[in-house]
């Protein structure tokens, strides 16, 4: 229990440290900074998690890994819903995203949501990139604490 709290509090502090900078330039780039942090963490984390796994057979298999094992490691639960259009777009829906549940359960503080989702987006992008998939990850919140992560795979 205590270790989860530690991670949450640290995450919140990193967010407020980066987002509440007095410098105007820093403010504009704060979201991308958080995303870059998440990318680096995701990249190394996925390497650790898959050290005993063989190679995944396709993209969908990789996504399932992200939804189950990866999310379990990060937030002690699985993604609630995974959808795809079979053309490289995947939507991961978490109905009770851990970092948002304590902030609000409704529309209050909606404008703050992107701050707390930037690093998770980076985490997913980093993990996928570690598994050889280049992607763009965006997040979307309609009412807290539910949120959707959209993953768009970039074909090279």
């Amino acid at each position, binding site marked *: 229990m205590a270790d989860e709290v530690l991670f949450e509090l640290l995450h919140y502090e990193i967010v407020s440290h980066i987002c509440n900078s007095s410098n105007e330039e820093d403010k504009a780039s704060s979201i991308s900074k958080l995303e870059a942090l998440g990318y680096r963490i995701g990249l190394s984390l996925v390497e650790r998690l898959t050290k005993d796994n063989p190679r995944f057979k396709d993209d969908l298999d990789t996504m399932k890994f992200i939804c189950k094992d990866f999310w379990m490691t990060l937030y002690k639960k699985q993604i609630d819903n995974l959808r795809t259009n079979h053309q490289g777009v995947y939507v991961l829906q978490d109905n009770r995203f851990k970092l948002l549940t*304590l*902030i*609000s359960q409704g529309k209050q503080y909606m404008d703050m949501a992107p701050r707390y989702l930037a690093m998770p987006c980076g985490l997913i992008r980093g993990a996928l990139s570690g598994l050889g998939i280049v992607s763009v990850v965006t997040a979307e919140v309609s009412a807290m604490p539910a949120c959707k992560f959209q993953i768009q795979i970039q074909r090279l």
Partner: protein
Amino acid sequence: TKENNIITYYCKTISHRFQKLFINIQFFLKMCILVREFKTVPLVWVFSKMTIFNLYIFDRNGTCLYYTEWNRRNQSGISKEEEFKLMYGMILSIKSFCSRLSPTDLKDGFLSYRTSKYKLHFYETASGLKFILNTDINAGNMRDNIQQIYSNIYVENVIKNPECKLGQQITSELFQTKLDDYIRSLPQFATKLS
């Protein structure tokens, strides 16, 4: 015929008495069922007016972090800020008063006081947070309940919420609804039962 009359008379009175007894038994059984429904609630609580009036949360420096009221019928007639100052001042005075006048070593310090109309419960955390809950005089010990409010509602929804700045008024709607639900679920909040 005279004997017959007497017998019917006796029969009537006896049946009448039995009827009364029967009604009494029925009433008793109904009461038993009523009490059983409120298994955990002592009889006094069912038949007396129970209610929770209001709650203040002060931080270490005397800022009122949160105030809310449920069944308060009598307003103080001064602005809320003035009232918070008055309340905090009084609590501070009572605390020092208790510690000075205590003939033995104090353990928990000031816990509650009671007037003819209401009872004030006080709980202070290790970090200096003060919870003040006013109930009517029949509410028993509320210490565990306030402890619950602190550990399950305040810590979870205010301390862990990065949007709630420490040392400022609590604006989180989540905290407000959680607290309201908790207080309304308490047996001490039973205004309708009286």
